[in-house]
C-alpha cells in the first residue's frame, strides 16, 4: 500500500507542546492509521483494532486502525505529531518525572523511509510503501 502523512487540527509539529496541553490532549488520544474499508475488510481489520504498519526499511509501528473512505483503496494515512512510543514500546517511564506529555503514541516518522530532494535535501515523508496487519 502507499503510505502518506499529514496534520491534525489539535496538535502541532512533533506535538510535544500540544500533547502536553490537557485541553488539546483530550481531543486526540490515540495515534492511528487511516485505511480504506476495502483494504481493511480484506485483512479482517475492524475500526479501532490495533494494527502493525510495516515499512520497507524494516520499521514497524503499532497504531489503531481508523477505517474510512477519506483515503482511497491502496492508500494509508498517518498523522504526524505523536511520539513517545517506539515499535510497540511505551517510553513514558523515560521522561523526567512530571514532564511527560499526556498523550504518547507512535511517530509516523519511525515508519517513513530514506529519500531526499535533489536540490534541498528535503526528506520524503508523503509517499512511501507499507503493509498493514492486525496485531
Amino acid at each position, binding site marked *: 500500500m*502507499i503510505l*502518506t502523512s*499529514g*496534520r*491534525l*487540527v*489539535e*496538535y*502541532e*509539529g*512533533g*506535538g*510535544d*507542546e*500540544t500533547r*502536553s*496541553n*490537557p*485541553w*488539546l490532549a*483530550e*481531543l*486526540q*488520544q*490515540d495515534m492511528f492509521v*487511516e485505511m480504506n474499508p476495502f483494504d481493511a475488510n480484506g485483512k479482517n481489520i475492524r475500526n479501532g483494532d490495533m494494527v502493525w504498519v510495516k515499512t520497507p526499511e*524494516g*520499521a514497524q509501528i503499532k497504531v489503531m486502525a481508523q477505517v474510512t473512505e477519506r*483515503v*482511497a483503496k491502496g*492508500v494509508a494515512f498517518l498523522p504526524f505529531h505523536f*511520539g513517545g512510543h*517506539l515499535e510497540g514500546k511505551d*517510553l513514558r517511564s*523515560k*521522561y*523526567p*518525572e*512530571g*514532564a*511527560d*506529555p499526556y498523550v504518547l503514541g507512535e*511517530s*509516523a*516518522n519511525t515508519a517513513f523511509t*530514506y*529519500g*531526499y*530532494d*535533489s*536540490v*534541498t*535535501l*528535503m*526528506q*520524503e*515523508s*508523503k*509517499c*512511501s510503501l507499507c503493509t498493514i496487519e492486525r496485531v
Partner: protein
Amino acid sequence: MLRKKTSGVANGPLSSSFIGKAAETVVDRRAFLRGSGLAIGGLATAAALVGSNVTPAQAVGSAASVEIRKSVCTHCSVGCTVVAEVQNGVWTGQEPGWDSPINLGAHCAKGASVRETASGERRLKYPMKLTGGKWVRMSWDDAINEIGDQMLDIRKKSGPDSVYWLGSAKHSNEQAYLFRKFYAYWGTNNGDHQARICHSTTVAGVANTWGYGAMTNSYNDMHNSKAIFIIGGNPAEAHPVSLMHVLKAKEQNNAPVIVCDPRFTRTAAHADEYVRFRPGSDVALIWGIMWHIFDNKWEDKEFIRQRVYGMEDVMAEVKKWDPAETERVTGVPGSQLKRVAKIMANNRPGTFVWCMGGTQHTNGNNNTRAYCAFQLALGNMGTAGGGANIFRGHCNVQGATDFCVLSHSLPGYYGLSAGAWKHWARVWGEDIDWLKGRFDSLKGKDGKSKSLMNMKGIPVSRWIDGVLEDKDNMDQPDNLRAMVFWGHAPNSQTRMKEMKTAMEKLDLMVVIDPYPTVSAVLSDRTDGVYLLPATTQFETYGSVTASNRSLQWREKIIEPSFDSLPDHTIIYKFAKKFGFADRMFRKIKVTDDEPYVEDVTREFNGGMWTIGYTGQSPERIKAHMANQHVFDRTTLQANGGELDGEYYGLPWPCWGTAEMGHPGTPLLYDTSKPVAEGGLCFRARFGVEHEGNNLLAEGSYPVGSEIKDGYPEFTMGMLKKLGWDGDLTAGERAAIEKVAGDKTNWKVDLSGGIQRVAIKHGCAPFGNAKARVKVWTFPDPIPLHREPLYTSRRDLVADYPT
C-alpha cells in the same frame, strides 16, 4: 477516534490548580473545543461579517487589576493575535484578538488553549542531566559549564564542525538572528532548522522562479480571489483561521474551491471540485491540467511575453501529458481535469495554495516549480486575488528562514561567499580575519586549502548521516559528536530508527526546549544528555513574521515559569562561556545575561537589505500592534490616522531605513502600484541574458517607474549612468564609497541610499526581470514527473525514472 479520556494515563495527577482553572471557566472546555477546526473558523466568519459590533464576553473575575497584553499564537504561521489578561503576574484570561486584521476575533483549538502551553504543568522545569539512567536536577551555571567544557574539548580535538546547532522556527526573529550569528561565531555552518524539512523545496523552487521564496500575497488577499486552488494542503486543520478567508471568497465572490489531495481532508469537504490523485504525482497532475489550458489557448499570452522566460519549453513538456497519459500516472480522469482547467481559466484571478503535501517529496523542487508555472501561464501572479499563497507551518518559520538558521546561508539569503561574510562582518563591526580563524579548513582535490566558512554545512535532514557516516566520506574533519536540539522535535524527521542509533553514538546531546521532547526518551542512553528549560514565546518578547511576511510584536505576558530562560539569554550564556560574548554583543545592551531585544532588531535592520527587513524598526512594529483596528481587513492597509497608507506588519520587503517610511509590500510583484507604495516587479536575479535570450521584463514595470522597461539590479555605477547619483546625500555617498565604490550594489549598501534613490525614481532596487520557468541550474531545468523512490507503480519507473 475521538473518545473521552476515562482514566489518567499520564504520570501523576492533574494538579488541583488546573481543575480550579477549569471550574472557573464559563464555557465548558470540551464543548468549546470539540471539532474546533472548522466550527470555530465558521463562528469567526460570522463575527467578521457583522463587524466589530460583536463584543467579546466579559472576562470572569474582578476587573480591578487586570492588565491586557498582546502576543501572537505560537502554533502556526497564520499569526493570530492572543489578548492575555494578567492579574498579579498570573495569566488569568485570554481572548482572541478582535482588532487583528488577520484573525478578526477567531482562534482554533490550539490558539484557544495557548495559556496552558505557557503555564503548563508538564513543562520541563529545571536544567537536568541524565546520569546512570536517572534525570538529575542541576543549576544553570553548572549546566552551562559542564556542557561548555565538553564542547570546547570536542572543538579542540575534532574541530568546531563536530558540534551541530539545530535551531527552531519557534525562535522569535531576534532569537533566530542571534542563533545564526552565534554558530557563525562558534565557527561552523552546521546549523539548520525545521524549514529544511517543511518548505525548503518551496523556498528554493520559488526563489529560483521569481526572486523571493515566500508567500506572495496574504491570507486576507484571498478575499479578492475568483477561484481558489489548493494542492497538498489541509488548511482547515493545519491553518484553521486561514480557512475563514478562503470561505469569505467562496461566499462573497462565488469563488469555486478546488482541492487536490490523495486524502479527502476537512478542507476537501469544502471543495466544489475534489481531485483525488496518487501521492507523488503532482507534476503529472499539474501538467495534465495545463495540457487543457494550452490546448484551448487559455494562457495569458501578453503576460507571458512580458514577464515569463522559458514557457515554450514548459509547453513542450506539457504536450506529453495528454488526458490518457495523465490518467495512467495520476489516476485522475481527463474529463475532471478539463473541468478544473476551465474553472481556473474562467475565474481569474485565482489563487494557488500549497503546503507540505507538495513539498515533502524527493521530487519537491519540481512540484513547487510546476505550481509556479501554472500561475504564470494563467497570468495570476502579481495581482490581488492571485499569487502563490504558500502557507508556512510554524509560527515563525518564515522569520527563521529569512534569518537563515540554515546550513547554507547567512541571514537574509546572502549565502556563504566571501562577499556575504564581509557584508555581515561589516554589520557586526567584526574583524573578518578573526571570524575566519574560528573556522576549520580542508584540503581540496586541487591540494589547496579551503575554508569551511564558505562551504555548506550538513542539513538537518542528514545529521544522522553526519554521525554514522565514515568520516573519510565527509566534507569536514570529523563526525558530529555533539547535537544541540534547540526547539526541535526529532519525530518530525524520517528514519527514526537510524536516528536512535545516531543519538546513542554521540558524545553529548543537549535539548533546549520548554518541553522535554521525544529527544529525551528516544535513545537508550543512560548518560550525556542534558535538558535545559527554555521559555515559551509568551514569557518573553520580540518580533515574529507571519506567513504573509507581516511582522508582529509579542509582548511578554508572564515572567518565565520555573527555571526557564528565553533563548536569547541562553545564547548569551553560551557565548560568554565560549569567550566571544563581548564581540558578538558589542552593539547590544545586556542586563543580567539578557540581551535587550530591541537592540537586536535594530542590528538586523542594519543588515537585511536583500529582503527588506530594514524598515521595520521595533517602534514601527509596536505601533502597528497597538493600532490593529486601523487596518483594512482585505488590503491590510491603514486607513487614516498616523499609520495611513502603511500595510499591517510592514510585510517585507519594507525597503530602506525606517526613516524612509516605506509602507511594506503586501503583494509581491504587483506592478499596479509604485514601488514606494508597495508595488514591485519580478526580481532580476539570474543575469540579464540566457543563451542569447533577454531575461529582463519587456514593456512591463511598476506604475510610476522612470525606466519603462526591464533593468538589472541597482549598483552605484548604474545610479551614476542614469545620472541619479546626485540624489544621494553626502553621508550615503561616503558609506557606499567605503564598501566597494561603483561596484557597491543595493544589497550591501549599509546606508540604504541606493535603495532610496532607485525607489524615488519608481524603480525596484533588485531590478525588473522575467520570472523563469526554466531553472537551468537545477537537475531538471523544466520540472519533470519522477516516480517516488518507494513507488507502488514499478511499471512507470522506466518512463519516469526516480
